[in-house]
């Protein structure tokens, strides 16, 4: 073999090798799955995920630990007895961070890129509600360094208070962005179909909620006045009652299909409270029957009303509402010495109840100052409470009974140091559970998870 031949052969091989990459280029791209999606579809996805997180497992656990519902079988027997482990929280945590906020960050970037301030503002409000909820449930959580897997593969945990500060800032930004105009309608928005006024009101209601959570009652009241102004403006997850697993109310799906018997209202404190509250101005039977049901099998003395009440397949569930906003206003005013204002807000809730619950067994007459005076309708002399104390108690009880099934109840009983007196499910427990546990997935993968890992009865910083 001559040298030339060898050179020629090697040269040929070199060309062949060089062309290898050409032959395979482009075949790494998955032809079955999208590599991107329009920001509007991503908004729908993120909103629905948020709606699911806030009405599904986290809401069920929060309700059991707030005395509203009862865990009655298998793992839910455990939850009822405050037996829980870190792996119970992977779903809610992952859905909040990866399923909701990480997606919203992409939506926000895309909206900024095209100057769609309306879309941007909506995404920011949804994000604020999600991170606020996460901070409520877990305390110190990652936020400032989260959502950037390249720069911060293991995000650090921000103090709970600073997360709420950031939430307020984000809501302020959102309000500003919503005010800038932009695309008028975002039909992909499942909450308000892009209605700007509704989003602005919701943003203020949320600001009110998170001021309340850090016990800034003055600002809470200020924001509540700007918040959702009628039940028609409630932010609700619309459940259309389609097939189980498509658009049916998650409580309905869980109770009737997925885990029948796991979640009941047997020995529910909220139910007992409703049944024991009737007085000259109040009849709660209709509201009781809206949430609870005693028509079930004898094995389940009391159930969630999945037939013609709050938890039917088609029953939409509120995330933040007019009633909650008025309750914040009432509490904020009551705690800052404006009892008349507080009473007026409480009566606004009662007026809303009057509109919502009708017929025999429904009565919500307006309360007067006298009703809270010692010896009044709502302040038996034996209790030894001041008028202001009785008013605050009634405001919190009314809120507790108005928000049945929502996570916010769990936030309130912890924040108020259980002022309304929800009994513990476990006599030996030091208190009601004070938080959700950090999820196992995060513990496994993120060395920044607080150490020692706080237990179930350790209050989150804002409640200490």
């Amino acid at each position, binding site marked *: 073999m001559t040298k030339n031949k060898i050179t020629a052969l090697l040269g040929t091989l070199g060309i062949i090798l060089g062309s290898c*990459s050409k032959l395979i280029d482009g075949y790494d791209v998955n*032809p079955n799955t999208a590599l991107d999606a329009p920001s509007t579809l991503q908004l729908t996805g993120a909103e629905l995920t948020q709606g699911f997180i806030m009405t599904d*497992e986290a809401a069920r656990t929060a309700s059991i630990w707030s005395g509203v519902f009862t865990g009655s079988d298998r793992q839910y027997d455990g939850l009822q007895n405050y037996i829980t482990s870190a792996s119970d929280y992977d779903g809610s945590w*992952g859905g909040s961070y*990866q399923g909701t906020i990480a997606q919203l960050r992409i939506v926000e970037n895309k909206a900024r890129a095209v100057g769609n301030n309306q879309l941007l503002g909506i995404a920011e409000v949804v994000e604020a509600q999600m991170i606020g909820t996460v901070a409520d449930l877990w305390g110190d959580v990652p936020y400032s360094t989260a959502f950037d897997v390249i720069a911060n593969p293991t995000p650090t945990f921000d103090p709970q208070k600073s997360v709420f500060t950031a939430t307020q800032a984000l809501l302020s930004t959102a309000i500003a962005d919503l005010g800038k105009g932009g695309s008028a309608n975002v039909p992909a928005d499942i909450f308000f179909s892009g209605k700007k006024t509704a989003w602005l009101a919701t943003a203020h209601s949320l600001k009110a909620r998170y001021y309340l959570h850090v016990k800034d009652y003055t600002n809470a009241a200020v924001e509540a006045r700007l918040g959702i102004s009628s039940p028609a403006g409630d932010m609700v997850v619309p459940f259309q009652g389609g097939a189980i697993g498509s658009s049916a109310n998650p409580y309905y799906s869980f109770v009737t299909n997925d885990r029948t018997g796991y979640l009941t209202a047997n020995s529910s404190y909220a139910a007992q409270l409703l049944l024991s509250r009737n007085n000259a101005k109040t009849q709660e039977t209709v509201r009781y029957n809206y949430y609870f049901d005693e028509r079930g099998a004898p094995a389940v003395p009391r159930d969630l009303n999945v037939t013609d009440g709050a938890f039917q397949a088609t029953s939409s569930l509120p995330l933040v509402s007019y009633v909650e906003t008025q309750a914040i206003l009432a509490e904020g005013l009551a705690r800052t010495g404006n009892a008349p204002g507080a009473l007026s807000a409480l009566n606004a809730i009662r007026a809303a109840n009057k509109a919502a619950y009708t017929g025999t067994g429904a009565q919500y007459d307006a309360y007067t100052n006298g009703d809270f005076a010692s010896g009044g309708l709502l302040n038996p002399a034996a209790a030894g409470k001041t008028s202001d104390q009785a008013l605050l108690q009634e405001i919190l009880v009314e809120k507790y009974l108005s928000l049945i099934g929502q996570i916010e109840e769990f936030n309130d009983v912890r924040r108020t140091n259980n002022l309304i007196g929800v009994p513990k499910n476990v006599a030996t427990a030091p208190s009601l559970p004070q938080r959700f546990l950090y999820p196992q*997935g995060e513990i496994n993968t993120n060395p920044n998870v607080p150490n020692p890992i706080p237990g179930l009865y350790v209050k989150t910083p804002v409640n200490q």
Partner: protein
Amino acid sequence: MTKRLFWIAVLLTGFCQLAWAQDRTISGKITDRATSQGLPGVTVIVKGRPTIGTSTNAEGTYSLSVPADANTLVYSFVGFATQEIALTGSNTVSVALATDTKQLNEVVVTALGLEANRDQLGTAQATVQGPALVRSGETSVITALSGKTPGVLITRSTGDPGASANIQIRGASTITGNLQPLIVVDGVPISNSSIGNDGIVASNGGAASNQTNGVAQASRLNDINPDDIATMNVLKGAAAAALWGTRGANGVIVITTKKGRSANGKVNLSYRSTVSIDQINRKVPLQTTFGQGAEGLFSSTNSRTWGDRIADRKGGPDNTITTPGAPGYQGFITFPDGTRRYNIASGTVANPHGGKNSTDIFDHRADMFNNGFSWDNIVSMSGGDDRSNFYLSLGNTHTKGIALQNSDNDRTTVRLNVDRQLTDKLRVSVNTTYARTKSNRVQQGSNTSGIFLGGLRTPADFNNTYFQGDYTDATGFVFPGRQSSYRNPLGRSNSPGYDNPLWTEANVLNQTRVNRLLGSVELMYDITPWLNILNRTGVDTYTDNRSEYFPIGAAAISIGSLTAETIQETQVNNDLIARAHTKLNDNITLTGLVGYNLNARRNTQIGASASAFLNPLSPPQLGNTPATNRNPYNLVTDQRTAAVYGQVDVGLYDQVFLSGTLRVEAASTFGTQVSNTFAFPSATLAWQFTKLAAFSNSAALSFGKLRLSYGQVGVQPGVYLTNTVYVPVAPADGFGTSLDASSYGGGYARSGAQGNPFLKPERKTELEGGFDLRFAHDRIGFSATGYSNETRDAILGVQLPATAGFTSAFKNAARIQNRGLELSLDGDAVKTPDFTFNISPNFSLNRNKVTDLAGVTSVFLNGNTDSETRAVLGQPLGVLFGSRWDRDENGALKLDVNGFPIKAATPGVFGDPNPKWRGGVNLNFRYRALSLNVFVDHVGTADVLNGTRGALNVFGTSVETGRETTVSAATAAKLKVAGTGSGTAFGNATTVAQRYKPNADGTYTFRGIVSNFGGADVALDEGWYRTGLGNIFNGPSEQFKESVSYTRLREVSLNYTLNQDWLRNTAKISAIDLSVTGRNLYLWTNYTGIDPETNLTGVSNGRGYDYFNNPSTRSIIFSVRLTY
């Protein structure tokens, strides 16, 4: 010079012959016994007089003058057994030589499909001859390979016709990647996928399939007709497979198909016909003592068989409730033969039998089966001339499974292999096969339509043969065509709970139609005598049309469903190879090659599923459903690989052989952010130390070779792991509650699984050493090989903190290692011209261990919840994982106050399904034209999870739930029972005395046994098995792990060859081979279920899980082959 020497030799020979020429001339024709063609070049000598001889001419005839005192002639030829014939009066001696398999083994085929000399190889390589595959009686190539070579473990999924089988060579080399070896036919890689219901993307070529229900699909290698195979070479180690780079980590099976043989234009025709009768080889033992019901009372709709004692019944016809309006009247079902079935009153404490009088029992172990059969026909023609060869075959194998209906497999193959020397320098060969496989598959496994799931749970007192009829309700309304099953005997409900297995076999249809074309064209051009170029192009393409139909009333989906889809796989492969051979001097030979390989694989899957049939009388039609219940889908995968490779072989002094290979590869599945080429080297050394002077006179050791090799191969990442994708949003929790954004106008999210553009191929490094020895003039051969390998950068979905925006990412993170030993012996214990007895045992063991799992302790691979196979750090791959008994630090069971064990709070590893060792022995006796082959193999200690038994305990049909025990009153009063207080007297009882009624003599008889877990004696009764922990639903899975060994009489084959002259002269038939074979005749095992060679998840990384898997079969096979 050479020419001159030749002529001198010829002259000398001629002179010698002249010198001895006297007396007589013997002539005759020497033929190949297999083909009856003349064999040119056969050496014929006079025994004891090596200088007197000749060789046959091109027609195979010879003529030799022999001295008067010569009494025996010796005929010898490479590749054939040497034969001696005593001279008689006749001057004509014609001999049919038989092939010598041991000598043929000398030539092996390498990874590239090129021939090599085994004695010069530095790696262990097993060769299985085509006839041995056919003789096994298996209709599939993979199962025919079972036990034949050390280091190769074949596990069939089920015994259904054409079902897939898993091939594992030297243990598992990857964790979640494809574990199946590469199959190369005539130098061209072909598909051996087994695509389950999870589709082409998720199953990653069948590797990651987690199908615990449905049907067992085929392995696509089944499309090859074993009769067309000349040899199968199994390349086990990394060095042998290194030229296939990232497709070689699981070994390579190189199949060479039959080629024609030159015989002066003569065409050989052969025809083989085989009939086999198959039957179930092992049944699940069931109890037949007690009837349907619970707590000892008969109930005709109870799902359990914890009812009354059948023998205690009155006998005769049941008291049925036939009067409309009477209490308990529920209408009736009318069966096609006019028989009506009415409701039967349930038992009471006073009369546990209720209206049930009949003591008839039915055998549900096998009432869904009868004999299967198969009929296999193949006709082949071959021939050629001095420039061309051809082989043409047409074969059909029809197998009807043992299920009564709709379980069969029909394969038709046509193969044409042609080669021709076009010019002195250019040779072309074309190999083509067309295969059509159609089959009906029967439901199995964890599946309410599985024939065993419904069948084995059926009470012994229920007759499954009436499975369908018209139900007339209490008001007289008729519902036609209702299914009758033991939980729904009248067909009152449209949902039968579990399907009656006979109904499933008659009505649930799962069909596949595969059309496959395999073809290759090879051009070889000799540029110079020492350099040639070879280009080989191969195409493998098939279309699999599948449909799965559940009619209205199926347990799995009572509204009915239909899935129709087409799966297509196409693989195009091209190799361009330049080969050079040179001899530097007398002592050094040098061979080298460089090659270029391009491989493209494209799979598509398109189909639709629909449910809720509108017209129940319509044939299966997607359109016979509401528009909202139709779900179309289409999927594509494309994979491309390009590589250059080279090999250098150096031979030194004809005794040391060194070989080195290198493959440099790029593939579309590699990340775009890493260097897109990866190199896989190998080096081997073979030293024939018996060529040393010290051994030259050794009579005992005739050949000895030491081998040493090192190599690297890889595993390609699965398709499309390098990009992050956007997926439809459907949030769900761990309890099954979920929403779907498609109901809200559609919503998309960036997937939580982060694509990894840095993904590299997994890399397996293996060191292998061994030796091959032959003794007593090569009569005995012994081979030993040890190896150790480790796969690094194994790809795993690694968990990420959700707070960073993703929940997982694919990473090159894990490690897994294998170590093993393979031994084989092949010896002619007796060898005379008329009688030979050959014994060839083999033995292998492998130890596997997952050594790194990227920080996690275990990864789910396959199975049902709590009956899982997992990758666990520090354990072999695929360990059985699930709930266990709670134990103290010494391993003793922790007991509750009553003496019963407790379920541990956390699940863990409880078994290893990888066999400790495997061995086989083949015995071959041959007396003249009669031969007997016996093959036995053994699998030593592998754990199998008998989930079937674990489930049947709840249902009260397993044989262990049929036992009865009588205890004294005193014992009964303190003997504790298990079971929860469900409010009934039965549930609230804590002792035998409380739960059961005493006998007349005061003793207590209960259904169950007295056992002891290390504390007090306890009663294992219905409370334990049905409501307590004595079953797999409530109790730990661990208790149903069985450590199993099994020995299988895999093959007994008796063969007789007729090839006498009269046959040839009168019938023009050169040979008739008659054989009778017993396949899988007997199984010795301690396993309590079906044949333990089974796996629910089929070809996957799961192992050792039996959950209502369909059983295996044994066969008697009669075969006749005519050769013209």
